[in-house]
């Protein structure tokens, strides 16, 4: 089970909430006033953010308004895996929003969705300020942060807190006219988003997208290395002020409320000392977060790349042999099937 928050314009939300379909754009209007598709790397980042989504995952929508404060709406449930489809749904002259998923009101919270319950985005940001929401720094597009529309969040405490605020403000922020749902069906000839994934070994976002997909599927090639995980997120903010983020964070529940956190850093090609320094620093930063119980939780580092310098393999092996909380895994990947898939092997 996972949770997501997806940004959408107010204009597109009117259609999306009735038809139960969300689409991510593949281009934008540039400075010269012309529409152009994003670069391959950016397209893979869109796939990366969506491809770990599964049926019954929970979704909130960040509705961006032209006037007045933005809002967060929910809670919805994913009703089909993400897919690519170019059928026109939204009334936009340039964009068809082809990277899509289908959703419906969450069965337990239909009463929220039918009255389009929402909270002001400032209430959401207060949760970030209070570190109750810790996986995100903001929902805005900032100069130093990659623009994203779909963000995976922690599916227990973070999700429950947003849900609580939606209930807290429900009386005052519901709409009186009931939403008339008229959900669209998944196209017969739909293409699963995973099939849009190419260029593994060439772009960092491609290998990250494949990892998100495989972790979501509990694929043995990764669970053999990391063990099974109960939640996972990408681009998780570790240092809010410098806007540094963990590539992928996996969480596994252990006995007695303890948790194992696996901090993954992904490199397209060769990993050197600086890659290892980065993941070890993130581990040290993460263990100081309020949510971590330093006496019981385990923090593991995982560096993923195609090749590794010998010095970091030797150091990692020795470091792990000391048996101190904070092991580091080195996982090598090898692109296969013309860059549409990869094999993984733990080397330390």
């Amino acid at each position, binding site marked *: 089970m996972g949770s997501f928050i997806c940004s959408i314009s107010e204009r597109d939300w009117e259609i999306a909430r009735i038809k139960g379909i969300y689409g991510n754009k593949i281009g934008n209007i540039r400075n010269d006033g012309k529409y152009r598709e994003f670069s391959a790397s950016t397209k893979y980042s869109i796939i990366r953010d969506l491809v770990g989504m599964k049926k019954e995952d929970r979704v909130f929508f960040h509705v961006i308004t032209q006037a007045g404060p933005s809002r967060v709406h929910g809670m919805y449930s994913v009703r089909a895996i993400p897919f690519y489809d170019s059928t026109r749904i939204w009334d936009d002259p340039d964009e068809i929003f082809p990277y899509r998923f289908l959703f419906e009101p969450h069965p337990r919270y239909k009463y929220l969705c039918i009255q389009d319950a929402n909270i002001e985005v400032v209430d959401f940001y207060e949760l970030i300020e209070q570190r109750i929401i810790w996986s995100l720094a903001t929902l805005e597009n900032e100069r130093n942060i990659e623009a994203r529309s779909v963000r995976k969040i922690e599916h227990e405490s973070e999700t429950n807190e947003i849900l609580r605020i939606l209930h807290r403000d429900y009386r005052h922020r519901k709409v009186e006219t009931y939403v008339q749902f008229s959900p669209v069906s998944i196209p017969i000839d739909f293409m699963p988003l995973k099939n849009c994934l190419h260029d593994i070994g060439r772009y960092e976002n491609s290998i990250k997208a494949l990892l998100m997909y495989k972790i979501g599927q509990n694929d043995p090639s990764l669970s053999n290395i990391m063990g099974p995980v109960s939640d996972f997120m990408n681009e998780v903010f570790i240092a809010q002020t410098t806007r540094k983020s963990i590539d992928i964070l996996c969480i596994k529940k252990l006995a007695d409320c303890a948790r194992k956190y696996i901090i993954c850093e992904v490199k397209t090609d060769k990993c050197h*000392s600086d890659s*290892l*320094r980065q993941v*070890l*620093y993130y581990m*040290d930063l993460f*263990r*100081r977060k309020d949510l*971590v119980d*330093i*006496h019981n939780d385990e923090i593991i580092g995982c560096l993923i790349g195609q090749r590794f310098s010998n*010095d*970091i393999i030797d*150091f990692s092996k*020795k*470091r792990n*042999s*000391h*048996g*101190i*909380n*904070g092991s580091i895994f080195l996982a090598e990947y090898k692109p296969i099937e013309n860059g549409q898939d990869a094999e993984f092997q733990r080397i330390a």
Partner: protein
Amino acid sequence: MIKKLSTSEPYISLCQDLYSLDIFDKAINGLLTIIEKNKELRITLVERKFVNNSGSCINAGYFFIQCLKTICEEEHLKVFRRFLETTVKEKAKGNYMEVDPILSATGYSNNVIDFVDKYNEIQRRKPIQLFLYG
């Protein structure tokens, strides 16, 4: 280059007078207090304080010191790191920047020196400082 201490018993010297060795300088590292000792493992934990603008003594971190009576091999380093980890958790909420690790021994195996060099290069933590004696 590992600095040599001018004593044949660093643990006893430290326990008697923290400034008796060439590790600490009173002018810079004043207000040091031994707050914990482990005689069996010859470990001392030293609290570092400073006087702030209001005249109060404020904690400014710790020194975690182990004085081995032998050549330091990988097994010794494991024990040292394990106790360091416990101290960092208990005293500094997991922040390795709060604790300066210091190890003294009569010698060091090449494996230990290589590991410590790489550890100090890669980990953004207080470096492990090695001293020789005897």
